[in-house]
C-alpha cells in the first residue's frame, strides 16, 4: 500500500533537518502504530506524506499503490485515497460541516471519474455515519470545527474519514483530548473501517488507544527516524518504561 524509502526532509525556509531517513512499509490491510517523544517528527511525516507546503524532501521516496506521490498535489493524493486525521483540525468559519463534506466527497469522486452523490443520497449516508459517532444533526450544520470542543473535532475527523472511505488512513494523535467513551467511539469507528484493502498509520502517545485498535506493527520514532519496530507489545513496553531504554539501546 504505502512504501516509504529513506525519506529525508528539511524545512523549506531554514536549514533544519527533521526527518533523517524514514523507512516504513505498510501493506494493504495492516494497522501500524507510531509512537515517539514530542518533536521526533511524527506529524512532519504525516504532513510530508499528504503534501503540505513548507517542507523540502532532500532524499528518498514514498510510493502509494505503486505511484510516486511526493510530486503530486495534496488534493491529488487525497483523491488517490490518502487521508490524514489532523492532530489539530482546522476551523473554517461560515462553511457548514455538511457542505464541506459533500464538496470534499464529490471532488474526490469526480477526480476518480465516479458519479457525484445526489444531495439526498449524501444526506442519508452522512446522517447514519454521524449517528454511529454520536455526532448530532446540529453539529453537522455548524461551520467546520468552529467552536467544537477538542474531542468533537477529533470525532469530526473520523466522520470525514468514514465518509471519504480512504485506502490509507493516517491518524495523528486522534486519541489526545478524548474522554474514555469518545475514545471507544473513535476506536469503533476505525475498527469498522478495517478491511483487507485499507491500511492505517496511527500516531499516538498512549497504549490505551491500541487496546482498542490492535496494531499489526508498532514503530518507535526518534530524532526523525524509526529506531525500532515490533509487535503490539512494544507499545506496552513504552507505556511501562518510557523511551529512555529504547533511546539508549539505539544510541
Amino acid at each position, binding site marked *: 500500500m504505502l512504501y516509504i524509502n529513506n525519506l529525508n526532509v528539511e524545512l523549506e525556509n531554514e536549514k533544519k533537518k527533521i526527518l533523517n531517513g524514514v523507512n516504513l512499509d505498510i501493506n494493504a490491510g495492516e494497522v501500524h502504530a507510531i509512537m515517539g517523544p514530542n518533536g521526533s517528527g511524527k506529524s512532519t511525516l504525516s504532513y510530508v506524506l499528504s503534501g503540505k507546503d513548507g517542507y523540502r524532501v532532500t532524499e528518498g521516496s514514498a510510493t502509494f499503490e505503486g505511484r510516486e506521490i511526493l510530486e503530486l498535489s495534496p488534493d491529488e493524493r487525497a483523491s488517490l485515497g490518502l487521508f490524514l486525521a489532523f492532530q489539530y483540525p482546522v476551523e473554517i468559519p461560515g462553511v457548514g460541516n455538511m457542505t*464541506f463534506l459533500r464538496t470534499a466527497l464529490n*471532488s474526490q469522486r469526480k477526480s476518480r471519474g465516479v458519479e457525484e452523490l445526489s444531495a439526498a443520497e449524501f444526506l442519508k449516508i452522512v446522517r447514519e455515519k454521524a449517528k454511529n459517532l454520536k455526532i448530532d444533526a446540529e453539529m453537522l450544520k455548524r461551520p467546520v470545527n468552529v467552536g467544537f470542543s477538542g474531542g468533537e473535532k477529533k470525532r469530526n475527523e473520523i466522520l470525514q474519514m468514514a465518509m471519504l472511505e480512504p485506502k490509507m488512513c493516517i491518524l495523528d494523535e486522534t486519541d489526545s483530548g478524548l474522554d474514555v467513551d469518545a475514545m471507544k467511539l473513535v476506536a469503533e469507528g476505525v475498527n469498522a473501517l478495517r478491511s483487507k484493502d485499507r491500511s492505517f498509520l496511527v500516531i499516538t502517545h498512549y497504549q490505551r488507544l491500541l487496546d482498542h485498535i490492535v496494531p499489526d506493527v508498532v514503530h518507535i520514532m526518534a530524532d526523525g527516524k524509526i529506531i525500532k519496530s515490533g509487535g503490539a507489545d512494544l507499545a506496552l513496553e513504552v507505556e511501562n518504561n518510557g523511551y529512555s531504554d529504547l533511546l539508549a539501546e539505539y544510541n
Partner: protein
Amino acid sequence: MSNTDTYEREGVDQDTVEAVRTVGQKYKYGFSTDIEMEYAPKGVNADIVKLISKKNDEPSWMTDWRLSALKRWEKLVEPNWAMVNYPEIDFQDIHYYAKPKSMEKKPKSLAEVDPKLLETYEKLGIPLKEQIILAGVEVGVDGTQEQRKVAVDAVFDSVSVGTTFKTELKAAGVIFCSISEAIREYPDLVKKYLGSVVPQSDNYYATLNAAVFTDGSFVYVPPGVRCPMELSTYFRINAENTGQFERTLIIADKGSYVSYLEGCTAPQRDTNQLHAAVVELVIEEDAEIKYSTVQNWYPGDENGKGGIYNFVTKRADCRGDRAKVMWTQVETGSAVTWKYPSCILRGNESQGEFYSIAITNNHQQADTGTKMVHLGQNTKSRIVSKGISAGFAQNTYRGLVSMHPKAKKSRNFTQCDSLLIGDKCGAHTIPYIECKNNSSRIEHEATTSKVDDDQLFYCHQRGIGEEEAVALIVNGFCKDVLQALPMEFAMEAQALVAISLEGSVG
C-alpha cells in the same frame, strides 16, 4: 429554520462549486451580440438631451426636467474623494444613446422583440420568456419545492426590451414597467416621486444621469399589496463607447411589500465604459422593500485594461413610520466601483439594513459602503459588509452613520470584515459616525483576516482543489450576506464569488 431548509441552503454551496466547474471562461458574460445599433452622436449637450427625450416620446415637463439637470451638471466638477484611481473620463467622447435598430418601433409584446436580443438574454441565463421564467425554484417552509415566479424587465444598452408577467402583476395592482413607459403612462406618479429621493443635483453622476438617463425600471406597489412575485431587472451594456444611464424608481405605498432583484453584465472590451445609474426607493408607512443587486459588469483583464466604471447613486427614503428597507449587494464586477446605497430613516421606528459583499481581484478598485441617516425616533440600522481583495486590488468600505437630534433612542450596528488573498492587495475601512443626541447607540466592529494556508491545506487534504477551496472559504466568509439574498440570487452570487476569484491563488 427547519432542517431541510438549512440543508438546502448548505446544498447551495455545492451548486456553486458545480457552477465553477462548468464555467470554462473567466468572464462568461464577455460575448457581445452583433445587433445593428442606432447611436446618438457622441457627447452631451442640450440637443442630445432633447433627442433622448424625443426618442422616448416624453412629455415636455420631462424634457424640461432633464434640461435643468444638464444646466446644473455643466457647472459641477467630478468628485475625487473616493479611494479610486482612473484616468480622466472624457464625457464628450461617450455615446449617450444607443438602441438596437429592431426596437425602432416599440414592440407591443415580447413576441415582437428581436429574437437576437432574446438570444442574448438566454445566453446570460436570464429567463426572459415567460415559460422559462418559471425555472426559479425555492424550498418552502415545509421543505417542499414550490415554483416561484420572477417578473423580469431587461434593459439592453439604453432601452428596455420587455417586461414579463405584466398582466398578472396588473391584476394585483402592481405597476412594473420601464421608466420610459411610466413617464408616458403614469405621469402623476412619476412627477410625484422622481427626484424626490435623489434630487437632480445630488452629485455629479446623479445629475448627469438626470439629464441623460435613457431607460430603467419603474415599480409601484399600491397600499396593502404584497407583490405576488420577485421583480427583476437585468442590465446589459452591449454597444461599444456607450454609457449606460438607467434610472430606477420603486415606490412601496403604505403597508405594501416588494422584493426587487437587479443583475448586470457587460461584454469584454479593451476600453472602459461608464455606467452611472440612479436608483430611488420610496417606502411609505409600514411598507417594505428588499433590493438585491448582483453586479457583474466586466472588471477588465488581468492587467487592468478595460472594464466598467460603475458610479451609482442608490438611496432609499423610509418616509413613513415603521417603513423598512434592505439593500443587499454582491459586487464582483467593474474596474472601478463607487457606490453607497443609503437609507434615510425618516419615519419613526423605520429600519434600514445594508448587506454587502464586494470582491476585487487583479486591478479592480471598489469604494463602497452605505449611509444610514437616522432622522426619526427609535430607528434602527444594521450594516454587514464583507470586502474581499485579491491580486493588486483595492477595496474600501466607506460608511456614514448619522444620528440626528430628533432620532432619539435609535440604534446602529455595523460589522465590517475584510479578507485578503495574497499580499499585494489592500483593504480599507473608513467609518464616519455622527451622533447628535445622547439616547442613541452606535456599535462598530471591524476585522481584517487573510485566507489562511492551514485552511487551504485542510481543504486540499480532503480532496478539494485550489480554486474550489478558495471559493469555499470565501463563501463561508460571506455567508451572513449570502443568506440575506433571495434563493435564486444566492446561488448565482456564490458562483460569481468563485468565478471572480479564479487565479487569485497559486
